[in-house]
């Protein structure tokens, strides 16, 4: 497989994943804030912006972080490289570059999604709220996964998609937990009491609400929520699950068996995974959740760079 094609597959996965993640967070936050007496708690939209890592950029275009502006910025704004529309556009560009290597069904599905989303009018949608648009994005992303799984041979190209999806999700979940935890804890320290609804929103945004209840049979408890999203071995959006996926994908690409590693990306992934397997949530909280998650996010960035160095870039032949 050409390095360029592997590169495009990897980013195709990351951009569709990012679009879905952004849509989920937007949707859930919007509806939670609608329900809540948000002023009383002083809850704001700002944390979402820092989750997306685009707070500075946002300030260049908008003065106030309200529902309307944040939605417009994260869903449609062409100047925001991480906006949902930009992610879908870039995903499609990547697919177009390699359309001879992906299945016809994948291409038509993604191309159709691109055109469908293009028919949404940003003005109308920002007025109507994010549910309709975000629902379409989430559904589109799920369908694209399904079409990919069912039509693309599960060869090394598929593994690059798998690694891209898993890495994107792992990073997004880490950001989500970090930002929400800080935000909600800060709230209690100034005398507010975030009730369980905020924590429910966190779970819902990653589709883990029902799973939480099945797992714990107990009321929503911040520590358990963090445990679920970081250390759970089965929920497809927990960090541990995603890193397990990354490891499986990377090993399949290099044809490496368990217990060893073929390159730096595999070594780092394995190291992170060992931690996630044996760490306990109480220890993590005691040692500082923010520091722990920041460390993970940095590690994911490094792994992304190392994958690119190993497989995508080519030094000229001497």
């Amino acid at each position, binding site marked *: *497989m*050409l*390095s*360029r094609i592997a590169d495009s597959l990897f980013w195709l996965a990351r951009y569709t994943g990012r679009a879905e993640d952004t849509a989920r967070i937007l949707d859930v936050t919007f509806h939670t804030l609608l329900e809540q007496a948000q002023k009383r708690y002083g809850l704001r939209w700002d944390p979402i912006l820092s989750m997306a890592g685009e707070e500075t950029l946002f300030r260049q275009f908008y003065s106030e972080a309200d529902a309307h502006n944040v939605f417009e910025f994260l869903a449609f704004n062409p100047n925001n490289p991480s906006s949902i529309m930009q992610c879908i556009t870039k995903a499609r560009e990547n697919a177009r570059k390699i*359309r*001879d*290597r992906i299945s016809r069904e994948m291409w038509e599905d993604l191309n159709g999604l691109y055109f469908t989303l293009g028919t949404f009018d940003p003005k109308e949608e920002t007025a109507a709220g994010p549910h309709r648009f975000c629902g379409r994005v989430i559904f589109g992303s799920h369908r694209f996964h399904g079409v990919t799984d069912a039509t693309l041979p599960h060869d090394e190209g598929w593994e690059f998609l798998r690694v891209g999806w898993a890495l994107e999700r792992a990073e997004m979940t880490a950001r989500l937990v970090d930002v929400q935890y800080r935000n909600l804890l800060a709230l209690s320290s100034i005398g507010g009491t975030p009730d369980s609804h905020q924590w429910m929103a966190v779970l819902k945004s990653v589709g883990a609400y029902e799973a939480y209840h099945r797992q714990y049979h107990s009321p929503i408890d911040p520590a358990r929520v963090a445990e679920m999203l970081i250390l759970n071995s089965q929920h497809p959006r927990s960090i541990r699950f995603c890193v397990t996926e990354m490891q499986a994908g990377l090993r399949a690409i290099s044809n490496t068996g368990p217990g060893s590693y073929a390159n730096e990306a595999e070594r780092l992934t394995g190291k992170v995974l060992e931690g996630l397997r044996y760490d306990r949530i109480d220890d993590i909280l005691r040692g500082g959740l923010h520091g722990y998650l920041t460390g993970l996010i940095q590690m994911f960035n490094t792994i992304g760079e190392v994958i690119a160095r190993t497989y995508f870039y*080519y030094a*000229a032949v001497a």
Partner: protein
Amino acid sequence: MCLDRGLFSGYTAGPFYDEMFSSQGSARSHYARLLEKLGGMAPSQFEERRKLADLSFLLQGITFTVYSDGRGTERLFPFDLIPRILPQSEWAHIEAGLTQRVVALNLFLQDVYGKQQILKDRKIPSSLVYSCRHFRREMMGLEVPHGIYTHVCGIDLVRDSSTGEFYVLEDNVRTPSGISYVLENRLVMTRAFPEAFHEHEVLPVAHYPSELSRILRMLSPRGESESQIVLLTPGIHNSAYFEHSFLAQQMGIELVEGSDLIVDGVVVYMKTIYGLKRVDVIYRRVDDDFLDPLCFRSDSMLGVPGLMGAYRAGNVALANTPGNGVADDKAIYAFVPTLIKYYLGEDPVLRSVETYLCDRSDHLSHVLTNLPKLVVKSVGESGGYGMLMGPSAARAEIEAFRERIMSEPRNYIAQPIVPLSVVPSYDSAAQCMAGRHVDLRPYCLYDGQKVTIVPGGLTRVALQPGSLVVNSSQGGGSKDTWVLRGEC
């Protein structure tokens, strides 16, 4: 015929040769059954099918990019649902003419880059060959794999309304495009309009990719069993990018950009996730100029440094062969009948359009006095660029061309305007059928022994009323083209 109702109500053939109707107004026999089906169709039904076809093209991303608006908008290549039908007997005549032409052009290229016997025999002025912009002295004396230059040719034909006969309008032997539309048009047609195929035996076209792939494999310097074939594209921004990826996928070969390839020790490799992999055959859709910055244009970012060295060493095969542009130069075109006679000892089966060479003083004066009646073409261009359509041009445009011709006569030829035949086509603005001018570009594959031509080819249609320019960049569309078995 029921021209008084349904889709064709009010249709008149007009002064041009109508592919569907005879001059008496009755349907030609090879169109009769289709017309019967269409005649019973309500315009709204037809419109529905048309939308279905458009949607299918859009979803598949069969679009080309228009740069003029600065944003690089993707547009559909308009598709007209009324097929262009040729009876097999007429197709056989065309096929014979094209076969002869391809073989002669290939012999000409072998000769021009080899012994140059035709120049020594003074059948073609040497000056004409050497002054050709696409003549590549780098190719002189090089033995090309299997002696094949013209692996893929697209030869443009037009039917002259005044004689009803097919003429060759131009040859494209560099990197002709459009075959993907032939294959996709057929596919979309069978989906959007399946009943049109009932009672017709339409000759299939789907074998093109496998035939091309067979020829490419044959060229491999390491033998067919060990042949790594790639298609070299300028990239996603090229207007024919859809075709490049389509063909690569159909043939199951790697689609590469220049930066995916590297030359080391006069061998070409591609950069894969597991290391360098040797490449044997390159079906290149990058122009000569951009192929290798060490050999041709040094500012090219699309090519592969050292590629021509590897080619010269016989370590990689290229299709089509560099330097082919000397054979489809529009001034050389005037000599193709001479070439056919010279190399094959035969008379041309298909005639050429009368051509005036502006660097001949007698022709030049005729051209300059008759500019408003002629079409003037720049010899090295393709795609409908650099052209003057005398009758429809503004006076200032004609005068501008006069200046250009006089300052660079070798660069221009002129031809009388050919009154192209028409095929009924749907005018969506007026919501009725109207005759629109068409040409025909069949695609010829040559393996050194045999010329294979998929039946039909691409029928391009000028959708603007009265327009004679069929190029997609100038508002043209296309039609499915049927060759009917056994019809006469």
